């Protein structure tokens, strides 16, 4: 009898966790992505997305278009405090060139994953430095629901 109760509870627990997980999967749409191109505006010391940044949107019920648009706008203008610090950091460490990056973002604009797609291969310590700084980035005015993630591709040009 004890066993029966134990395993019933276990099955119920798994049912709930799997339901939550499925909910998240449906919303983020798993691996399915579409890619669009978009031209950003340039700033004086930094040319963002000059080669045409890539945008990834997921086919989910959560509309992340607005979030991606906002993040890209912030990357294009580099006007927020963390992004201005990024520019300063690159200047100080003489990090130059074009870097294609994938960013996965959650919550209030916290960077979850950084994938250095290309760029900087000629100076790996500096490329690693940039990646470390990108991981610490915090975007402003972003609200991504819990268990949701937004992924985008962008070209940074320092």
């Amino acid at each position, binding site marked *: 009898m*004890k*066993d029966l109760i134990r*395993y019933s509870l*276990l*099955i119920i627990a*798994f049912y709930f*966790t*799997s339901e939550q*997980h*499925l909910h998240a*999967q449906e919303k983020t749409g*798993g*691996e399915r992505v579409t890619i669009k191109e978009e031209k950003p505006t340039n700033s004086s010391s930094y040319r963002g997305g000059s080669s045409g940044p890539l945008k990834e949107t997921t086919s989910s019920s959560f509309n992340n278009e607005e979030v991606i648009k906002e993040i890209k706008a912030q990357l294009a203008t580099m006007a927020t405090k963390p992004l201005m610090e990024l520019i300063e950091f690159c200047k100080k460490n003489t990090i130059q060139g074009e870097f294609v990056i*994938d960013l*996965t973002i959650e919550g209030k604009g916290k*960077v*979850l*994953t*950084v*994938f*250095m*797609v290309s760029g900087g*291969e000629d100076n*790996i*310590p500096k*490329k*690693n430095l940039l*990646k*470390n700084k990108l*991981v610490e980035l915090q975007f402003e005015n972003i609200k991504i629901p819990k268990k949701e993630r937004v*992924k985008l591709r962008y070209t940074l040009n320092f």
Partner: protein
Amino acid sequence: MKKIAIILIALFAFLGTQAQEEMRQEFTKEIDHSFDYTAKSDNQGYCYASSDKEITVLDTKTGAIKWNKKFSEISNELRKVDEIIPLWESNVIFVFDRKMGKDKMACIDALTGSLLWISSNYQDVEEDNIIYVSELNAFAVSTKESLTMVKARTGEELWQTSKFKGIVGYYVYLPDGTITMINMKSTLLGSLFSGFKNQIVKINTKNGDVIWDQVYRGVVEKKVLTHERLVKMEIKDNNVFLYMNGIQVFDFSTGKPLWAAVYDQTPSDVVKNKKPAGARKFGAYGVVAEPVVVGDYIYVLDLVNKRNQYLKKYALKTGKMIWQSAEIKDARAIPGIYVMGDKVVLQVGGQVELQYQVVTKDATTSTIEMENVKPMNVQCFNAITGEQLWESEKMKKGLTNLFLTQGNVIVCSGKAFYSMDLTTGKENYEMPLKEDNIGEADLIIPYKDQAVIIGEKGVSTRKISDGSLTASSKFRRSTPITYNNQYIYGESTLALATPKSDYAVYDVSTCKYKSFDAHKGASAYLSDDGLSLYVFESGSLTRKSKFTKLSAK
């Protein structure tokens, strides 16, 4: 007359000692420094001996020194090295110079000794934090904060994600470029403060995308001295099977938990009474058998509490319980489940592994030993219905392990060797091990038509068909050299080591051995083909350090 008898005894003793051959040395190479760290790779053909300040890399075929350097010569950022991790497939050696929050991790070309890169990005990294992905020639480093994929030879960081945190408990890499892994606590205190959460994740290793993440149940245990992890994971038929205190099954595509049969008891607790007084670290292993998968079914033990245990059969695909055995009364340890045809055999009680460390004012003593846990018996169940068919209590006083072959259960009580009919439990034979002259048996291993019996003081072989003794050779009180439960290397080589670093390398087909007495504290490795024994002896002020290759044949 008395005189003649004494002379004869002396003569026999002399002949007896002469009969035991010493191993032939293929070469001995002197090393100019003492060392604490040694390792070898047969595939790559080199080995190293290193102290915290200096390392020497040698060719395992010829003994030639490939290179020797002080770590401070490799990089002026390195002083005293605290840990060395070889990544053989990539021909690199990682060395760690730890300084509270300022750990340096350097990557050295193992073939030339030149520095490839050095970084202080990775703090508190140990061997368990590194996974090598040969397909990418890169490795994933997990830290308290994140998981980073790093190109092995350049140090280029391909991606970093903060979605996975903690030490890697176990991982499975698939050719589709995904890695499925679970995390584990580094230390109990550390995990409490950092808000540790059990995670099982599937990650695309090419870009760091977390495809799914889920929570698993339980605590991944590590052996207290040898640090082997007590967890396994398998991916089969689009399912992830996590074996840890039972089984948990997840959908490989979505991560959805499908079913589980897990128990919350910590197996070590069942034999807490074996903990020696004053032991700081203590663990008992092999107390509960790992689940056994046969076809579409899995046989798994359920520890409801320390005294109540059941054997259960589940359908792998659905998680439906097919049957549950009657209570296995009073069992404190069930180290083995064996399945053959429509029979399931349980080894109840018997030898379990104890690892402990006792700290006294004078010394710290680490011990690994086998200990018999009572009660001991062998039980057989009908695999279709779960009904108990027979129980043998012949091995009341001792039980090593057992194996099934040709419709028989081959088992050893430590003092006698048995064969029992799998269907009825009736004894085919009972053979006392006195004439083997190897002390009490610790382990039996099937080898062709024989059983190799590893005793406290030597090895013997017996025919499985009638239990008759084929051969035996007494050595000294010793334990086998084993790695990942492999005892026999190559065709027929098995090695024993005494606590004083004396080695005996047996040919189990004849049960003859050759020996080599090294200096106490030496470390030894059998080659994968079982043809050689490599012995590293660290020197002192009066004695040179040595690397010796011995022929095992």
